[in-house]
């Protein structure tokens, strides 16, 4: 299975899971983890910045048009594209900093919420007022970090499995996370 197919499967699965299950969880603070953002961060960390930003753009566009969405088309595409690029370009540091995925997820959640709200504020979206954003922001980062190990693990696991046939040549001793680029 090629990496592109894999990335699209991950994105679609994250989206569907997000709108049908996660968004309906009655979590305290009425904020929920953003699986799509986590999937974009994980894909960017595994695949590098080019694939990361393309994956981010596609995931964002899909999140813009999936049924209950009711905002200006292109907002999530813009935000996730940037996040994919940034997370992909720090992926080189992965072998030195084992905690990098968490930092990337935290930064991604922070930047994602703020950027999305900023674009909304520029467009005069009544949902993106400051009291709402300041209430959502810390909880959003917290939930995203809590949920990140599962998503990142799932993406890594999938990538490993997809690449196992090539592994069997035994040429590459580095575990999947660092080899992926």
């Amino acid at each position, binding site marked *: 299975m090629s990496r592109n197919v894999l990335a699209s499967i991950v994105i679609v699965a994250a989206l*569907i899971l997000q709108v049908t299950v996660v968004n309906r969880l*009655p979590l305290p603070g*009425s904020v929920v983890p953003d699986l799509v953002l986590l999937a974009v961060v994980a894909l960017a960390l595994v695949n590098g910045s080019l694939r990361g930003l393309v994956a981010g753009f596609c995931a964002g566009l899909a999140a813009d048009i999936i049924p209950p969405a009711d905002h200006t*088309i292109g907002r999530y595409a813009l935000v996730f594209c940037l996040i994919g*690029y940034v997370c992909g370009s720090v992926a080189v540091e992965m072998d030195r900093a084992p905690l990098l995925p968490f930092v990337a997820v935290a930064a991604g959640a922070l930047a994602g*919420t703020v950027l999305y709200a900023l674009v909304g504020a520029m467009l005069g979206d009544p949902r993106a007022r400051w009291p709402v954003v300041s209430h959502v922001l810390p909880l959003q980062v917290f939930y995203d970090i809590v949920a990140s190990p599962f998503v990142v693990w799932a993406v890594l696991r999938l990538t490993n499995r997809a690449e196992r046939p090539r592994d069997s040549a035994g040429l590459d001793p580095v575990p999947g996370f660092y080899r992926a680029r």
Partner: protein
Amino acid sequence: MKDTRRTRAVLGVLLLVSLAMITVDYRGGDHSPLRVLRGFGEAIFGPIEQGATAVVHPIAGAFHTFTGAPSAHRRITRLERENQQLRRQLRTGQLDKRRAGELESLLGSSGLGGYRIVPAEVISSGEGMENTVSLDVGSRSGVQPNMTVLSGDGLVGRVTRVGPTTSTVMLATDAASSVGGRLESSNEIGIVQGAGRHGGSSLKFQLLDSTVVMEPGQRIVSFGSEDDRPYVPGVPIGTITRIERTSGSLTRTAVVRPFVHFTSLDVVGVVVAAPKRNPRDSVLPPSPSPSTPTPTPTPSQPPPAQAGSSAPPKSRPAPSPTSRG
């Protein structure tokens, strides 16, 4: 990291594309050419969401049971107490015939006010700061944009977009939603606005007339819009829990607890035909019995200078709830 120049070029192009999309979609409003994309998304993701919901529904139910346990426990205690009280009442034969008849006529007249509804199930819920859900009925079931959505308890929201088999509903708690509301048993009208995710699931009610006194415990029904789109009249919205006093403001704001439990929406109804005549308060649940210890009613509180109570206005001037713009 072999090809940063190419990466940057792609980044630039995609950012430009998304900015262009935002601009086009924003300028186009409801008629933007990009709405085609949404239709596309509805056609593709709608059926997938329906399938996924069918699969995960039992899991979500289990989760709800789990998280709802503490409140369920409280409710059991309350119900037990209520049960005892009722039993005592029954034993002493206090439940006279007249009251039973009254109750029956109230329930009968409500019959949900004569709205014709299409039942629907919530299949997914919106991202981020949006309080939107999608339903598993669409244009094939006769649903059109700007129809009222209600549940057995009261007002849920309005339909904003319709696909062939799914439709999107903006909940009344969404920050972009505003509904015309009317205070129970008086003719005073105002606007009910959602507080967004920040406010949990509470609503704000602003009376247009600042001289009228509101009290916690008063209830609000929908006022109805012109041609019953997007809101039909007489749908219960919620109960006033407290009054916010903001100095210097021309209007008074009340915090309203909605009748509908927005965090656990499941089966709702889309109103496809409004009642022939305004049901006014008849759909409100029977008010808590007057024997309960109310905090000493201030001399029956007649709304000051309310001459209009004799002749309720026939027309509904419709403070037409604004759509997003």
